[in-house]
């Protein structure tokens, strides 16, 4: 498969997936019904599940699905957004190449896109994507985006406390995308209650880990009852019935056993030789006596409940009943380990040698009683927790198993999302400290940047698909010419085989010198640059006024005016680039735990805005291209979210207002009540970029016509046979 074709192919595949996924995204999203080969039906709005159910066999589709799955395993959220974002990125990439063909027809041989194509190919783009993801993204998030972050913790003087209303907003927004619309309120309330009931003030990550590992054991699904019967109950519900139930109260102690209590004639790899009938009878009597004495001993320790991971024989059950000990056997090892983690109790071991067995460990339970749900009996245990997790169970009801499963998965995903949110996340990047800018005149600098920004973003986000005029191409020409100057730097950095110097000779030496310095991370004291910058400020303010004037006339319909604005605004950028060489230093910062943003595309619009801003100031060709590409692709998500809204809440209106508030430094207002996790979005962005890199770096798909084989499994099986 040709490489250039692969992007086109990938786009086709992604577009098909987008068509399916976009109907399930957001609060207006609908359900998908999946059938399994076994005949079961599953309801889902979970993008990952839908994609997996499709069983796609197209190679690129399989890459995408694999990437989505691994992303979901990590974060539990964002499969649908993943596809939409990827689709827009591919579309953007393809648009770059398309544009280049246009420019060829206009006989612009010097266009940088063509060079891009010729020199770097897709590999270069993918490398640029990696660079972006590892360096620029962190920088932008820390430097710009972080000032917009909200926190779900209400920060008091000493310690942070989780704010219930914020958590409710966060969860409601999460479940908007995951469960049917008539149940989301209920499920998010359930989750919120569960969270607060299980947590103590000192609970931390270990609770999340516990819930993550033992989620199946912590909930009980009941079909045939209305969803509204779902509830949370105190204690732990084991998915088994009592083998023996003896009502008990007072101090109930519990013991765990992992083996059969009744001694057997012979153990594994041993032989028991019966020499006479009496020997057989005495050994049987001994077995009975011993079982009896173990039970007596348990009772003397006040053990009233025996939890066993294996099936206990009739004899044990009988003596347990006689001693008034309740027995629950056949517990799964997961259930046993969950109980062990909660009450910090290890199973007792029966010693074969001495008749007197030692039961070192018992723990108290508050209660232990049968729990009847839909005519099935479960064991309900009131465990006294020794860790920070207070045991509670979720009972999920629904008319069909498929719906219950959907809710279960959504709750599980929500826990994953919260788990990510409650961790600090480290950001590492190379900071380009712009001393000159900061010391000289930051306000002017800021203004210029932002005013230039606006018209630019119009053309890229809204206008581009509809408009293709000569003026536009002129813009590109202008832009490309300036960019070309620095392209040599890019090229040399990534070590490409072809390098055509064709820029004004005057600029080259300065570039080279400065890049050398920056790579050595030396602070810059360059007077000439400062001079240049002063010059720039003048030109900026001049162009600002022009931009300002034209901007008054800007309306959503009038593209022509915007074009002019853009054309003018290109000018200062060109000069500014000269001084954006800054000293570099390695920075490490973090996204603190609990960072959230309002839902409804806030993250996307903000990042879009700052990326374009960054692209303006940036001097490296590939960074500019990649930043713009990503910035524009980001808008795809809010566009879909706002699709059903009309009038004042339509996407262009929202977008304009958001840009305006950003320029005037006002706080962002979202039309939706709800919050979403920043870290989740960050992970999503990086996962998509990784996926795109993967797609771009593949140059050939080799078809293997053979049964797939599991290497490791096959080996171990062979070993067993030999």
């Amino acid at each position: 498969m040709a490489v250039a074709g692969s992007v086109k192919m990938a786009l086709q595949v992604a577009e098909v997936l987008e068509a399916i996924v976009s109907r399930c995204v957001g609060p207006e999203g609908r359900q998908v019904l999946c059938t399994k080969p076994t005949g079961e039906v599953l309801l889902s709005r979970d993008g990952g599940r839908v994609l997996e159910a499709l069983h796609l066999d197209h190679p690129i589709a399989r890459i995408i699905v694999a990437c989505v799955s691994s992303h979901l395993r990590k974060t539990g959220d964002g499969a649908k957004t993943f596809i939409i974002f990827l689709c827009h990125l591919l579309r953007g990439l393809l648009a770059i190449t398309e544009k280049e063909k246009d420019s060829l027809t206009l006989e612009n041989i010097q266009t940088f896109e063509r060079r891009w194509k010729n020199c770097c190919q897709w590999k270069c783009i993918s490398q640029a994507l990696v660079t972006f993801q590892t360096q620029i993204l962190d920088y932008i998030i820390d430097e710009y985006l972080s000032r917009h972050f909200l926190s779900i913790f209400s920060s008091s003087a000493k310690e942070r406390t989780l704010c219930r209303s914020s958590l409710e907003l966060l969860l409601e927004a999460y479940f908007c995308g995951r469960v049917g619309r008539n149940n989301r309120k209920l499920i998010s309330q359930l989750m919120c209650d569960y969270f607060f009931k299980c947590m103590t003030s000192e609970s931390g990550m270990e609770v999340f880990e516990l819930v993550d590992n033992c989620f199946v054991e912590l909930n009980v699904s009941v079909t045939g009852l209305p969803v509204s019967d779902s509830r949370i109950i105190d204690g732990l519900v084991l998915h088994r019935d009592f083998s023996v139930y003896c009502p008990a109260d007072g101090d109930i102690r519990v013991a765990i056993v992992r083996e059969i209590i009744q001694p057997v004639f012979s153990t594994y790899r041993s032989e028991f030789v019966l020499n006479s009938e009496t020997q057989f009878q005495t050994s049987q009597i001994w077995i009975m006596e011993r079982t009896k004495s173990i039970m007596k001993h348990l009772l003397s320790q006040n053990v009233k409940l025996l939890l066993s991971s294996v099936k206990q024989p009739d004899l044990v059950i009988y003596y347990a009943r006689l001693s008034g000990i309740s027995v629950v056997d056949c517990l799964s090892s997961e259930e046993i380990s969950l109980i062990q983690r909660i009450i910090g109790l290890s199973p007792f071991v029966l010693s074969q040698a001495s008749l007197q067995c030692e039961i070192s460990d018992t723990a108290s339970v508050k209660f232990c009683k049968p729990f009847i749900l839909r005519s099935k009996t479960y064991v309900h245990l009131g465990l006294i927790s020794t860790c920070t997790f207070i045991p509670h169970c979720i009972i999920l009801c629904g008319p069909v198993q498929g719906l219950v499963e959907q809710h279960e998965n959504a709750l599980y995903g929500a826990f994953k999302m919260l788990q990510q949110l409650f961790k600090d996340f480290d950001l590492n990047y190379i900071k380009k400290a712009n001393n000159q800018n900061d010391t000289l005149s930051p306000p002017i600098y800021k203004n210029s940047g932002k005013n230039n920004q606006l018209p630019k973003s119009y053309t890229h986000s809204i206008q581009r698909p509809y408009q293709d005029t000569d003026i536009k191409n002129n813009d590109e020409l202008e832009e490309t010419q300036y960019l070309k100057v620095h392209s040599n730097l890019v090229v040399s950095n990534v070590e490409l085989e072809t390098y055509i110097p064709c820029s004004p000779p005057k600029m080259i030496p300065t570039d080279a010198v400065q890049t050398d310095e920056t790579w050595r991370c030396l602070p810059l004291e360059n007077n000439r640059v400062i001079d240049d910058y002063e010059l720039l400020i003048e030109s900026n303010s001049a162009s600002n006024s022009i931009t300002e004037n034209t901007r008054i006339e800007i309306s959503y319909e009038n593209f022509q005016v915007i074009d002019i604005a853009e054309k003018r605004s290109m000018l200062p950028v060109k000069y500014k680039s000269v001084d954006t060489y800054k000293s570099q230093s390695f920075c490490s910062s973090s996204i603190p735990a609990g960072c959230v943003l309002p839902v409804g595309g806030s993250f996307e619009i903000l990042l879009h805005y700052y990326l374009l801003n960054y692209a303006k100031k940036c001097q490296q060709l590939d960074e500019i291209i990649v930043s713009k590409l990503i910035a524009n692709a980001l808008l795809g998500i809010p566009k879909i979210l706002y699709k059903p809204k009309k009038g004042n809440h339509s996407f262009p209106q929202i977008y304009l207002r958001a840009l305006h508030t950003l320029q005037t430094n006002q706080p962002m207002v979202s039309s939706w009540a709800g919050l979403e996790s920043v870290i989740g979005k960050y992970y999503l962005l990086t996962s998509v970029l990784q996926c795109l890199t993967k797609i771009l770096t593949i140059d050939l798909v080799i078809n293997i016509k053979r049964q797939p084989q599991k290497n490791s499994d096959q080996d171990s099986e062979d070993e067993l046979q030999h």
Partner: protein
Amino acid sequence: MLSRLEAKKPSLCYSEPLTTEKVRATLSVLKGILTSCYGPSGRLKQLHNGMGGAVCTTSQSAVLLRNLSVTHPILKILTTSVQNHVSCFSDCGLFTAILCCNLIENVQKTDLTVTTTIKLNTHLLNFCTNYLRSEVCGCRIPVDFSNTPILLCLVRSILTSKPACMLTRKEIDHISVLILRAFLLTIPENTEDPIILGKSIIVPLKGQRVTDSTVLPGVLIEVSEVQLMKILLVRKSSPLKVVLFSTSLSGDFSDPGEGNVVVSDGVFLENAVLDQLINLGRQLVSDRVELVLCQKVIHPSLKQFLTTHQVIAIDRVGVMLMEPLSKVTGAQPIGSLGSISPGSYGSVKDWCSAKFGCKHFFHLIPNEATVSSLLLCNRSDTAWDELKLTCQTALHVLQLIIKEPWVLLGGGCTETHLAAYIRHKTYEEPGSILQDDGCTQAELQLIAEAFCSALESLAGSLEHDGGEILIDMKYGHFWSIQAGPSSVVNWTDLLSRCGCGVYSSQEELGWSFLRSTCHPFVPQTCLPHESWEVSPQSAHSLTLDCLTAKLSGLQVAVETANLILDLAYVIEDKS
């Protein structure tokens, strides 16, 4: 191994499944099947398997849906959802299924967006459940357990609505009394909290007259005639000391462990085990046990030993009877061949032999226990199966009544009354239904109309004989006129009582046809007390439904309909 790793075939994915003609057609076929079964005059379905097996005639949703092989995923959602409801509540399966079909059909005609539809459906559902649980509700009656006529009416209504049981009026009366008696026997005398109900065991007796059915306290164990003859030779005493074994007494060597057990030459384990069994028998005899019951097999030698010592031994009781037997006798099931602790023994008041039809039974009569046996007779196999299921339904419904002691008016009256009430409220006080979430009043009226007509056509499907259905304008109850020669001048003379039997047509009532559009009117809420504190004669004719089951059915129907309407895609796994 290889087959498991076989590459999956791509799935089939199609959008907007409900809009396709095929789905609509299959849905309406299913609806047709279900509606034709509904109610006392519902038509029976014969489930015929060309590959063999028993012929089954039924009109119950549980049997019908279990046997229908539904392939389309949407129908599968519908049927499993109804089946799950039935397994929880036993009753109101057809109600749920038909209402769900009606809702889907009606809502699709409205052309509103799915979002609004689902929102409004949920609001209407909440409105209905609130009304049905509220004090002002005009179609529910409190149940007092001292008032047996109401309970009897409820049981009778359930039996009447299952025509495949093939019972006459007299037989229905007989069986409903038996069911109620069997149920009352399961309620323990000392009412401590929580009440643990006993068990009614249904004992099959096919090929007998229905009126031969009976209820007996205690447990019936079927034994062969020969065995019974032997038992009868044993002299009786009262009370009897009983022992109950859950382990096998056949002398098998159960668990040798994971290693090997080597038996030397000349050692006969059989003898050793038999010795052990006889020792056990000796202990039983010396402890003056008179009845040995074993879940599994008793070794013939031990049996012989016991019989010669005047001990009755009955083996192969089966695991199903173990719990009731333990309850009846108070004995603990013994899992050991070792010495038996005296606390494990139980006792019964008496035993007797009984013969019903051609079957012989050993009847254990308890001192006081909450276990009863319901001997159920019916003429044919299929009718017996249907009757058994109906009895189980009735017993389950009675249990539900303990938790929530309310019944709803049956015979279609609840549905029509509810529809009238919703109509009235949507026009008069739409704010009481609409919560503030952006739905307009016009949208509400459209959906409410769809919802109400779904309820009304559900009530209408009770009529299968071409009769006409009317609604009175005072109570909103359901009235049907028999189809027949239209020689009668005044058709109102044909009306005697409404569907549930609470009102008679003597009163001055306005009438409207069910399927015609009528002005919304205010149905009278708050049932008059006289209607349920009536003399046994008039209470005799009431048709009632269990509130818990019906309410849950309503919820499940609306939730399932919402679910199906919300589907944007169906992805079918073809591998």
